[in-house]
Each structure stands twice: as C-alpha cells, then as structure tokens.
C-alpha cells in the first residue's frame, strides 16, 4: 500500500513538474516553428482551409512571441525567435479572406520583427554572426529593406485601378526610389555583415518578386493596355517603365537596362526592358 502511495505521489509530482517545466513554446525550437510556418503557408488555399491556416499561423506567432519574451537572456535564441515571429507574421499576410484590420496588424508585425531582427544582426556585427545567423539575418534584412517596395506596389495598385494617374506616377516613382535607396541599402548591410552569396539569395528572389508584383499589378489594372492618349495616362506609363527599368538594372536582368534607367532614355528601351523582366517573372 505504501509503495502504491509512493508511486502515486511520484506520478502526480512528475506530472506536475513536467507541466511546470514544459516551456510555453510547446516544445518547439525557432527552427521547427519556422518549418511548421512554411508548411502551413505552402498548403493549398481555399475558403475552407484558409480559416484553419490563419488559426494555425496565429498560434505559431503566439508561440514565437512567447519565445522572444522568454529568451531575453540569450541574444542568439532571442534573435532566432524574432525571426520566427517575423516569418509567421509575413505568412499571415499571404492568407486570403482575413479582415483588413487583421491584415494591417500582420503587416505591422512583420515589419516590427524584421526591424528588431535586423537591428540585432547589425549590432552583433559580422565577427559574431555564425553562418546560421547569417542565413536568417539575410532574410530579416531583406524583409525590412523590401517592405516599403511592397507598400509602393499596393499604392500603385490602388491608384492605377482607380484611374488616379497622379497617384500611379507617385507610386511608381516611390518604387524606383526604393530600388535606389533601400535595395541598394541591402547591399551595404550585406557587406557590413559579410553575408555569403547564399545568404543574400532570398533578398534577390524577394526583390524580383516585388518587381514581378508591380508588373502583375500593372497587368491587372491594364495601365499599358489603356488606349487613352491623354498626357496623364502617358505619364503614368512612363513612370511605371522607369521604375521597372531601375529594378531590371538592379537585378541584372537586362544588360542594356542600365542604359535606359533614367528619364532621359528612350521609351522603347524601357519598354523592351520591362518585357524582359515580365518574361523572367513568367518563368518564376
């Protein structure tokens, strides 16, 4: 009887201690969390499953946020959890069917965690970053440096769909400016952290994706297929072409692109460059 009593106490005690000892991150490491996030993101989208996907990603985001809070004493683990949170927030943005406020919240968190991770990476400096940290520093910096390009694409979409040609020009110019400042800034960050070519690959892929998103937005809004010969429509087309030529130059898609990235260069040169970029997007 005594033995049974002892075993019972031991079981209860073990269960209690295990419960206390189980981390709030539910046994996940940042890496496993990111693997799960990517798996959820890659699932096929349909109205039924999207709600479940949103729920799963929100759970994983909470886990990552808990991980961040619990790892303040360990900068490397903290950085890894920050990256996991950024990945979850970024994945949430891609799920259709959520409310505007939920989308805005996810977008805000993506930028927030990308900023946080990037700042940590840059403060650590190249000498203290190992290859695995280089891997996610490269991605965090990419998300931060490309966030404003994504906003420019959204602004372009809204303005062009609404026939707000001045807004469309401003958005295209904004995108072109991002290429020359933030995109170029990424190269400086990468040099500062001595990121390997491999660790810079996600940025190149994401930057190309942004340019492709702009091209797709243009196609859906039908800007270049707009038959109007009004000056403001022509101006919107010119601004779009200039932005695309800049992106193509940066991405090295067209060897001749550099020669037509400025306003003074010929329209046909920019048009050909944009077509080349569009063909690259279709091959993605």
């Amino acid at each position, binding site marked *: 009887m005594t033995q049974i009593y002892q075993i019972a106490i031991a079981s209860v005690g073990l269960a209690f201690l*295990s419960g206390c000892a189980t981390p709030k991150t539910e046994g996940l*490491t940042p*890496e496993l969390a990111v693997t799960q996030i*990517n798996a959820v993101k*890659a699932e096929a989208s349909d109205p039924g499953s999207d709600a479940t996907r949103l729920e799963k990603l929100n759970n994983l985001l909470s886990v990552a946020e808990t991980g961040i809070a619990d790892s303040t004493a360990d900068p490397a683990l903290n950085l890894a959890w920050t990256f996991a949170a950024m990945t979850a927030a970024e994945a949430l943005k891609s799920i*259709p069917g959520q409310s505007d406020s939920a989308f805005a919240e996810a977008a805000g968190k993506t930028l927030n965690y990308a900023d946080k991770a990037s700042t940590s990476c840059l403060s650590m400096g190249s000498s203290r970053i190992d290859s695995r940290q280089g891997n996610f520093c490269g991605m965090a910096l990419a998300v931060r440096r490309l966030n404003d390009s994504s906003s420019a694409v959204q602004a372009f979409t809204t303005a062009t*769909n609404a026939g707000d040609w001045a807004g469309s020009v401003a958005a295209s110019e904004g995108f072109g400016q991002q290429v020359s400042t933030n995109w170029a800034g990424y190269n400086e960050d990468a040099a500062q952290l001595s990121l390997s070519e491999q660790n810079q690959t996600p940025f190149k892929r994401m930057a190309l994706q942004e340019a492709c998103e702009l091209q797709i937005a243009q*196609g859906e809004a*039908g800007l270049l297929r707009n*038959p109007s010969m009004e000056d403001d429509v022509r101006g919107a087309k010119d601004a779009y072409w200039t932005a695309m030529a800049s992106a193509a130059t940066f991405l090295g898609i067209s060897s001749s692109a550099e020669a037509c990235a400025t306003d003074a260069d010929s329209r046909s040169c920019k048009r050909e460059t944009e077509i080349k970029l569009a063909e690259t997007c279709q091959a993605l």
Partner: protein
Amino acid sequence: MTGITGVMFAVKAAFSILETAKNIAAARASRFDFDLVFAPLPAGNPLEVARQQLSKSENWGPGSQHIHILNNFSDCILDQGDFGRFIDPEAPHERQKQLCMVLSETFSSSVTEEDLEEFQSVDRLHQWVDNDAGRRDRAWLILRMSGLALDFISSHTHRLGLRGQAQTIVGAISDRLAAHIERNQSTIIETAFTKGAGARIAEALLTTSLEIAETRPELFSDKASVQALVRSAISPFRELNAENVGLDLNATQRLMKIRQVLRGPVATGVIQTVYEHRRDIFDGDYPEKESAAGIVTDALFEGLVAETVSGGLAKVFTPGFFVRTYPSVLRAVSASPEAFVRGTGQHVALGREFLSGLVDSLATMESRPQFAQAIFEMGMEMTRRHARIYIVDEARSALSAEMAERLESADSPWALMQIKILSHIADGMISHFEAKGLDPSILSRPTEQAFILDMVGLVAEQVAETPGMILGNDVNPEVVNIARGVAAFIANEHASLISRADWQRVSAHAISLALANPETLFSLDASDPEDALVVALVQRVLSSAQANLTAQADGATPLNRKSGQILFGRTLADALMTTLDMATSHARQLATESGQSALTQFIEQLNQLAMTQGAEQLSSQDWIYAFRWFLSDVISTGQANIPSETILLAVEAMRKGRALESSKADDPFAFDHVRTPTGDPEVYYQPVPPQGAEG
C-alpha cells in the same frame, strides 16, 4: 520520508534527462537552415502576355516571318508607337481570343483559351464597379449567368429579343442596387475605400443581379418557356451565392465556383427545363409528335435528361457539350430518324440506350476529350447527309444481300456506328502520331486538331461512299489501316515540304486509290503502318525532295532554295500522286528495293537536270510531265539512267503539244496543274524511248 525523498530524487533525475534529451533534439533541429516559402505568383494575364508579344520589337523586326499576324488582326490591335501594341479592348472578344491563341502558338507561350476566358471574365467583373463604362458588361454577366440556357438556344436568339431587353435588365439592377445601398448605407460608408471594397460592390451587384434574374425572368422574355429556362439556370447560382456571401472570395475563386455550378446543377436544370418546354422552345423546328422524328427525338431527349441527372455522360463530354451539339442531333434526327433506330427501325424508347451507346462509341476518345465533341458533330453531320440514302436505298437495293442483312441485324443504330467509325479512324491516326513521338502538346493546338479532323473526315467520307467498307457494327479493319497509313506519311519529318491543302489533296487521292486497291497499297499484313507500300513510297519521294534542297545549299528550305530547286509544294504533291498511281499498276516492281531505288534515282536525275538547266529549260510543269512520261518505263526496267537529251527532247515536244492544246478555243486549260493525274496527259508526239529500253 526517505521513500518520498527517493521519489523526489528520481523525479528530478527524470526531469533532468528529459531536459537534456530536449536540448539534444533542439540542437539537432538547429542544424537546419531557416527558409522562407515564397507565395506563388498569380498566373500570367493572357492579355498582358499578348501585349508583351505584340510590343517586343524582335518579334516584328525586319525579316520577321510573322508580319502577317499584324495584318490579319489589324482590326483588333492598337499600335501606339513607342507605347507599344496591345489588343484593342473594344474589339470583339472572339477576335481577341483568336489573336491571343495565334500569338501563343507563334511565340510558344502557354496561354490557353480557358485562361483567356477566365481573365476576360475577371476583367469584366472589375469593370462592374465603374458605373458608366460597365453597363454593357453588367448586362453581359447577367446573360452569362443563364449562359447554358441562352447558349442552348443560341440559334433562336431572335425569339428572345435580348438586345432590346438588356437595357431594361440593367435598369432593374440599378433600381435594386439603389435599394441595396439604402439598406446597407452605414456598412458601405464604413468600408468604402478599404481593402476589398471593390469585391464587396461586385458582390452586391452579383446578388442583386441574381435576384432580378430569378424573380423577374419576364425581363428576359415574355415567353413562359424562356422564363422557366432563365429561372432554372439562375436558381443554382443564387444558392451558390447565398452560401458564399461574406467569404470575401476574389474574382478568380468566384469564377471557379461558378464553373463548378455550370457543370452540375445548372446543366441538369437547363436540360430538364428544355425537355419540359421543348415544343415551345423549338417552335416549328421541333418534329411533329406523331412523326418518326418526333418519337425518336422525344425518346432521345428523355434519355438525355436521365443521363445528365445520373452524370453518366460526364466522362466524355465537356460542360457545354449539350448546349453546342444538341441542335446538331436534332437536325440529324429530323433528316433521318431511321439512323437512330436500331435494326429495321422499330420505334422503341431508345433514348437512354442511344446515349449509353454514344459513350461506348466515343470510348476511344475518352483520353482525348478535345476531339470528342468534334467527332460527335462530324458524326451527326455525316448521318444527316448520308444515312437516309445509305440505309434506305443503297442498303436494301444496291448493296449485296449480305450487307443489307448485316445492316438489318446491326446492334447499333447507324448514327452510333458512324461515330464509332469516326472514333476508330481518329484514334488510328492520333495513336500513330503519338507513336511517332510527336510532342503531345501539338495535339492541343486548334490548327493541328482541325487538320487531323479534316483528315478523319476525308477518310470517313470516302469510306461512307465505298460499299463493303462498313461492317455491321464497325468499320472494316482495312479502313483503320488506311487511316494509320495516311497519318504515317503526314507525320513524316519532311512533311512540311508540302502545304496542308496539298496534303489533303494527296491524302484524298491515296485514300481513293487505297479503297479501290486496299490490299495492294495498305497491306493488312503490315504490323507497322510504316511498312505499307504507299507509306514507303511517300517517304522515299519526300526524302529525295529534301535531299535535293539540302544537298545544293547548306540549310536550304523551300524559303531560301536556289533556282532550279523545284521539287516542293504543289510540284512535290503532284509527284507523290503520280507515284501512287504508278503503285497501283506496278505494285510488284515498286515493292522491291530495286524498284524503289530506280524511283528515287530518277527523281534525283530530274532534280539535277532542273538545277543545271534552270527554270527556262525545265519548269516545274516540265518536271512533272517528264516524271509522268518516263516513270512507268523506269520502274518496269529498273533503270533510271535516261539521257538528259532524251528528257529535254521529250519536254520540248510536250511543250509544243501544250502550245497546240492551249490554242484550242474549247480547251484553253488543257493542262491543269492540280488535275488529279489519273491518266497520262494528251501529247502530240511519239515519245522517244529511253536508251537501252528498246529491247
């Protein structure tokens, strides 16, 4: 107490082990790199792809072979100079689609008709939010909602008076929409200009439109039958819409759902309604109830409804199948009801049996749905044209008693047999193309499909007119062999030396000769169609022609050939037909290697002569005359070395003969270049016998 301390120690130890194991696992997991998954980019917008292809200067620069596209589609291309070219959004959608398909085929992009329709539809949905510019498109969508119903009776559109009604419908939508805005004012103000506002407005329009269409079908027509049709088409859409309100689907997702509904409940509802109101909808076109056609059509219709509801036909047919093809069934039934009745023509309730049989008849096309519909329509058209004469007259009098008996006891009605025959012919040809290793995507191109179907029709038409080629339940195996043989020679690697029109001429000639001499030209013993005599000869002649073009100039083609290189196009087609003629009378010699070698040597000799003499001394007409004149002797003797002087003398004599002929007022075109060479041309001189052939 000691016991409890021991247990606590054990618990601590266990926890420590657990923690260590967890750390090891985490460390293992940490060896993997982080990765981001990129959301896939949306599929390319076909109109954008077309814009890029039209604007890319290297596609249309000097020397481009595609300029004709710009000319042929000048009515739907907008050229804005430096701003590039694109498809005119105001051009008819059918023309836009044709241009997209031509560009896709020419520049090898992966745009399909389905993609294009989807994007055109999405474009229209986007235009909904623009109140003025979108009026026409809103009307279009309303009409599209009852698409099957309206398509079904597309040939009766005038009875609906849709054009006049469209404005009324749009007006009704505006009224309802105004009411909707009134009811939902606060929500609209709250959500206006936010993400998804466009989709919400479109949804409101969609809901309103569906409501209008179902509750007020009189706006479409004052005829009760059409109102029932519209209501039955719209009802499933309303149900779908009610299920999906609030899901914030994007336009593409919504269209996908609409398509699913079109395939199922709408198709069933429409067909049932059309059946119920058949006499009203078809008015005077519907056969009299008491007539044979009326009885057969009713039975057929009833079977169609039953099969549609059970889904039995879905595996072969596309969703719009019934809509587009049913009128052709009705035409065929009206023309020859006996063709749809089994055996001697008792009026049985055969509708369901016929449709089940249809699936069997088209069974070989199951994996080629792109051909199924065309084969079906072709079968119906041939039934309409041939069946009555064939069955009623020829089968009972002109044909042998045995054949008449076979037809009497046939298991399938004639119309089914016709489709079965066409399916077998098509399958024989397509299988051979596939066996030759041709890129399967070729068969998805409309132009290739049309060509294959033309060839199938060519074989079938001649078969239908040749007694003995149709058995009780199927086609004679010889016919399938002939079809495979025809496929074999048009699949030849050098087939492009001849235009498609000329291939049809050559094939028609080969089929005609083959049906008269099936065992000679397309032997049933040949396990591979390539072994048939006709195919072997065609390949020999084509190879000689290609060798002539390439031997004289590196990389030469019919486009950059040199003077004197004349064996291509119509000349080559005529040479092939002459060779086939010769094969019927000299089959034994031509089946041997020496006979075929003599044939190719003689072709090479004539080609060489044409090169050295030039067009003035030996034109393509002269070439064909000389070929016809000497070929019989060449094959008979197996000797091809006819002296050039002899050939030129013969040509000169023939020219004089031609001059004499052309001077005859009653026969100004004594030599018709495209005339089927069933006999030697008339000549006014005695031919010079080839040296060494005197005997």
